[in-house]
């Protein structure tokens, strides 16, 4: 087996070729929220997927005033005078020289920046990523065990990352901070530990005499939120309880939005709550009207919260709207058990109680394909920075290559099972490392999945550097606070922020309607059978006859064979009689010349 050294160039290089900066392109894979990104980038991304995204969605983005005018002139009932004036307005739309110049200058600057970024990319991003590849057909990458990896293939530093921790307060879960330096282990029966994942040292350990449902680091490892039996508590890295959040009661799942400094929580009652951790105020509370078991994940590209419900639906939420932004019926008649969204915000993976794992294209709101988990219900799901998909089902953890998101792949990339340790409760990839952490019934185990992590660090981003010292951490904290985004900025399309609104509600509604319609349209057009409407075809008699024609039994097979033989013989005879001169020595290619 060899490790593929080639960089998977699909998105990155193509985006560079399109004039985006490498930084921007790299950002797609990095842990970045597009809300912070300038919206235009997304437009570039959108244009990249022009053929995949429904045209109407794109139109909505690039709808222009002139188009709008034309649209109005077409749609509304106008009299002659109004039509003429509308035409004139379209025709003589002022093309300002100054603006043109400005646009040109900006464009030039952008391209120059892209070029310099590409140059910098060569210097800064020295590491390249790759996946394990099979050398021949008989080999399977899935058969590569962690034991083999640890003892035969990996360097010492990396092989240290393969370990098992047997802990008493099981079942266990774990989460990493954004830099991937620290991991937070939580035993559901009240054990909490911060671990330095790089040095494999215990940073702090504390025992809470309560059930822990979920945990989350806040902006950095020094603070963490813990969803306990009744409330959410905030602790610092020394284990001191800082806050008790009375607003967030009966919490089931929590998550933190780093760019908005928002702690989100969904509880037993099905209320989704946003709390600003910098001010401590509850920003908004939304009633999902779906109580009970809930799954909560954030879309890293636009900070929209995705909530998986017990009725098989996934709803999308923003603090700006009291209603859901969108609702997808993912699993028919089965609860959503796990969910993950990739960094670009293009793909969502949902696991349901029906043992299905669905891949969704969120841009189109369409399910592209799905996988089946044979071992059990997919309890946990995660997508790595480089889009390796990890599924924890029963005692198994199956990993799929990044291609699995784009199209249906036959075989998984890697596989790991935790025999005798109970089900895999949580599965999380460690940022900037090829490591995946599994929390299960007997503790925590860490495994190495080659090619899962982003190889190059992003030092420009606050709180993303795993090697930062105390001072850097403090500065980054301040910087992140200064760059904090308003909660109401969270929208489905981050491009909306700072953009021009659709001038008429009709257009906006039309756009959304068409988006919805295309999403709801049946996936495969071929499946739609055209009814033949010829006279007499729909008679029950003829239908039955046709049906009977299709039945193939052994008699019919026999008859067919006989017929074929007869035909063959006849052909041969004809050939012999017509052209005896055909020499048998001639090759079949030459025989047509005789």
């Amino acid at each position, binding site marked *: 087996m060899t490790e593929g050294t080639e960089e998977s160039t699909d998105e990155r290089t193509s985006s560079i070729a399109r004039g985006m900066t490498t930084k921007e392109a790299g950002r797609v894979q990095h842990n970045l929220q597009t809300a912070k990104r300038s919206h235009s980038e997304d437009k570039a991304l959108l244009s990249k997927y022009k053929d995949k995204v429904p045209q109407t969605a794109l139109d909505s983005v690039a709808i222009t005033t002139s188009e709008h005018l034309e649209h109005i002139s077409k749609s509304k009932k106008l009299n002659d005078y109004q039509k003429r004036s509308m035409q004139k307005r379209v025709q003589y739309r002022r093309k300002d020289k100054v603006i043109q110049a400005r646009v040109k200058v900006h464009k030039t600057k952008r*391209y120059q920046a892209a070029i310099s970024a590409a140059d910098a990319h060569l210097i800064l991003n020295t590491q390249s990523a790759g996946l394990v590849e099979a050398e021949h057909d008989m080999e399977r990458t899935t058969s590569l065990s962690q034991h083999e990896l640890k003892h035969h293939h990996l360097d010492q530093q990396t092989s240290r990352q393969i370990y098992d921790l047997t802990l008493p307060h099981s079942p266990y879960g774990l989460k990493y901070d954004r830099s991937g330096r620290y991991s937070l282990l939580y035993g559901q029966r009240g054990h909490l530990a911060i671990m330095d994942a790089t040095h494999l040292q215990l940073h702090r350990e504390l025992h809470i005499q309560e059930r822990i449902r979920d945990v989350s680091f806040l902006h950095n490892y020094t603070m963490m939120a813990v969803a306990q039996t009744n409330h959410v508590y905030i602790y610092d890295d020394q284990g001191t309880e800082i806050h008790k959040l009375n607003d967030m009661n009966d919490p089931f799942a929590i998550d933190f939005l780093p760019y908005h400094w928002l702690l989100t929580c969904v509880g037993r009652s099905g209320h989704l709550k946003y709390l600003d951790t910098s001010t401590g105020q509850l920003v908004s509370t939304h009633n999902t009207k779906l109580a009970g078991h809930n799954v909560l994940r954030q879309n890293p590209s636009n900070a929209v919260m995705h909530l998986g419900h017990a009725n098989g639906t996934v709803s999308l939420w923003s603090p700006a709207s009291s209603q859901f932004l969108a609702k997808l019926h993912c699993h028919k008649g089965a609860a959503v058990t796990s969910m993950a969204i990739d960094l670009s915000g293009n793909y969502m993976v949902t696991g349901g109680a029906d043992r299905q794992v669905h891949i969704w294209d969120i841009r189109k709101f369409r399910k592209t394909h799905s996988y089946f988990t044979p071992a059990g219900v997919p309890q946990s799901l995660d997508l790595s920075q480089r889009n390796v998909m990890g599924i924890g089902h029963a005692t198994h953890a199956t990993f799929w290559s990044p291609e699995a998101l784009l199209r249906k792949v036959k075989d998984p990339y890697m596989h790991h099972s935790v025999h005798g340790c109970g089900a895999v409760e949580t599965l999380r990839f460690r940022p900037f490392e090829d490591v995946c952490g599994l929390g299960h019934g007997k503790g925590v185990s860490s495994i190495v999945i080659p090619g899962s992590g982003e190889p190059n660090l992003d030092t420009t981003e606050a709180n993303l550097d795993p090697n930062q010292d105390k001072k850097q951490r403090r500065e980054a904290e301040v910087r992140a606070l200064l760059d904090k985004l308003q909660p*109401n900025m969270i929208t489905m399309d981050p491009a909306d922020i700072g953009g021009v609104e659709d001038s008429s509600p009709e257009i906006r509604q039309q756009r959304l309607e068409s*988006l919805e319609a295309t999403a709801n349209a049946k996936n495969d057009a071929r499946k739609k059978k055209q009814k033949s409407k010829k006279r007499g075809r729909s008679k029950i008699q003829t239908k039955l006859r046709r049906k009977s024609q299709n039945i193939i039994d052994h008699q019919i097979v026999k008859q067919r064979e006989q017929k074929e033989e007869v035909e063959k013989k006849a052909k041969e005879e004809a050939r012999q009689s017509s052209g005896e001169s055909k020499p048998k020595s001639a090759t079949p290619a030459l025989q047509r010349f005789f």
Partner: protein
Amino acid sequence: MGKRKSHEVTKEVVDRQPKIVEHVSDGDDEEISEDEAFNSEDERMYGHLFCRDNEGEETDSSDDAEEEDGSDDGQYMLELLNKLGNSARSEESKSSSHKGKLTLDNLMKGLNDTQGYNELRGSLKKEERAISAPIDKKHADREQRNLAYTEQVKNLSGWTTVIQGNRQAETLDFKPKTRVEASKDSLVIAFEPRSEFENDLQDALEQAGQEDEHAILQKEERALQDDLGSNRLSMDEYKERRSQLAQIRALMFYHEQKRHQIKKIKSKKYRRIRKKQRQRQQDSMLEAAMQVDGNLANEMKQKEEISRIQERMTLAHKNTSKWAKRILKRGKNIDIESRKALSAQLKRGDDLRRRIIDNDDQNASDGASDEEDLLKSTQGILADVKSNDVSGSEMNGLFKLSFMQKGIQKQRDLAKEEARKLLTELNSHTMDEVKYSNADTNVNTSGKRKFASSLEMKKHLARGELMAKSREFGVSNSLDSTGPINVLHDYELGLEESSSRKGNELILGITKENSGKGCVDKKHVDNPWTGSVEYKGTASSNKVDKDRKSSRLNMNQTVLNLDAVADIFDATKTAERASSKTETSEMSQSRKIARLNQDELVQRAFATTAMEEVTSKFEQEIEATDGQKSKADGDPKASSGWGSWAGVGAPPLLQAKGDRKTVKLQKGSNPHGKRSANGKHDVIINKKRLKKASDVFMLGEVPHPFSSREEYEQVMLGGIGREWNVASAYRNMTRPEILTRSGKSIRPISKSAKVKRAAAKF
């Protein structure tokens, strides 16, 4: 002094006139005394003298050639003043004692016994003349303002590039361009001893033999030259060189003397002659250059034209200039020279304008009569040339010289050639006319006639063709009535003259075709054109059939028809259009067309239209039914007439108040409007507007300087922060508009400021 006096004089004269209220301002004492010295009486007597003087000067300045007469007067005045000075000095004591006032009369008394006194007196006693009022102050001011304005504009326009550059620049850099570099050398060079100690030190160094840089350099140079011996000269060389120089100097001196003599010549006639000579020389040179260089000729023509235009615009030669006005102000007292100059100017203006008028006349005049005249004149030229060829013996004097004869011959040849060309062209036009006016009979003959001049015709093909075309169109109308095909005749009546060119040509083609064949059989049964038309008539629809019975075809259809037929012509269209077709070529073409059989022709002509017709009709039907249905289905308010004011200029139908909230979607705008086949929605998208986000973080309209959304979005595109950019790019993107260096003065704007290089383009 004379000038000043004359000025005073005019002022006084003005004073006496009733209209002007301006009084002489009292300046210093000296001026007063002068005023007194030259009182009104004196002025009456001698004023014109000074006036005339002034005039002379004026004319001098205007005309360079006439310097001498001004200088004459000057000399005279000088003498006069000298004498005046003498006498004044002698009489000063007397006059001051018994009269107290010094007037010109008193001064003149002393001149009684001098030689030219009487003459002078006579000239001084010349009758005075009225001087017209100066130009209105308002107008004068206006002129002045205009002038000042133009001058100012000229001055300011020099700034445009700088200003524009600054305006367009993204950042203005006011930092001093040159940094003061304090190197060791620069400090040493700039050192000047100031303090006592420094001075002492300097002295001491100088005493020790220190020299400044320049002195050392000179020393070195001297040493170098001496070493090579380059500044040593032999005696012979020296002498030779000296003689050379002397020669040159002598020559120069001689030349200078000669120039001086010529300059001294004061004869106006001589000047005039010289001027004319110069002019002629220039003209001839120009002409020669023009003959060689076509571009130059063009240029000259253009220049001439421009000068004409300018003349027309400015009327510069119509006594509008300041100079002319000032002269004219003097009325009939203008002296001959200036009068001549004026008239010359006027003549020049007239010349310029007349030429224009002539040109216009030429352009305006056209038509047969002019053409005939031209024809005659060209024929005349040809004949003349021929006759001149024979009569060579009549020449005399200068023209007997061989080179002159050659030149004449050459010119004549040229003229001949030109005339012949013109003649052929004219002939061809007339022939065309003849041909088309009676096409049936004259086709053959005209063809033959054309062959005779075809060689020459080729030369002027482009122009000739164009003419022919125009003729073609002109004549086609006349054919309407005589054309043998009545169906087509019908069409043509329907067609207007202004119908498309293609159509016209086509008709012409058809008529021509038939004019060729119509002689043979007039029933044109085998004619593909009529056949096709008939076929179409029957095949297209029943309606058309019915119409045919009334022997009227729809105008539109015919046009369509003709267009379709035109396509068939396409291959040979150019030949057809040229109209200089001979019988044979026409025959060949008709054969070509005949090769296509009836069905093919019909197919080619109507296949596309028929298909389109069917499909479009079908669509229309669907639309119509849909429209009816929707109207029937919808609420009664939606149908026309309900709550709407019908008629021209009516406002668009307003939505009912209740309906406004639920925005109705346009029908057919949504391709997937229907629900999915299984009737289930898997996706619900909230269509409510995010008030909190849109109100605060989105713009309702495209912000001011941008006219469209694309522009705005393009400018907003791309991140400018540190996170997305390299340091240099970040700096570049966030550079402030104005850059200054603290503690350094901002230099004022200057015309020579360097315009910043534009950013690289991609």
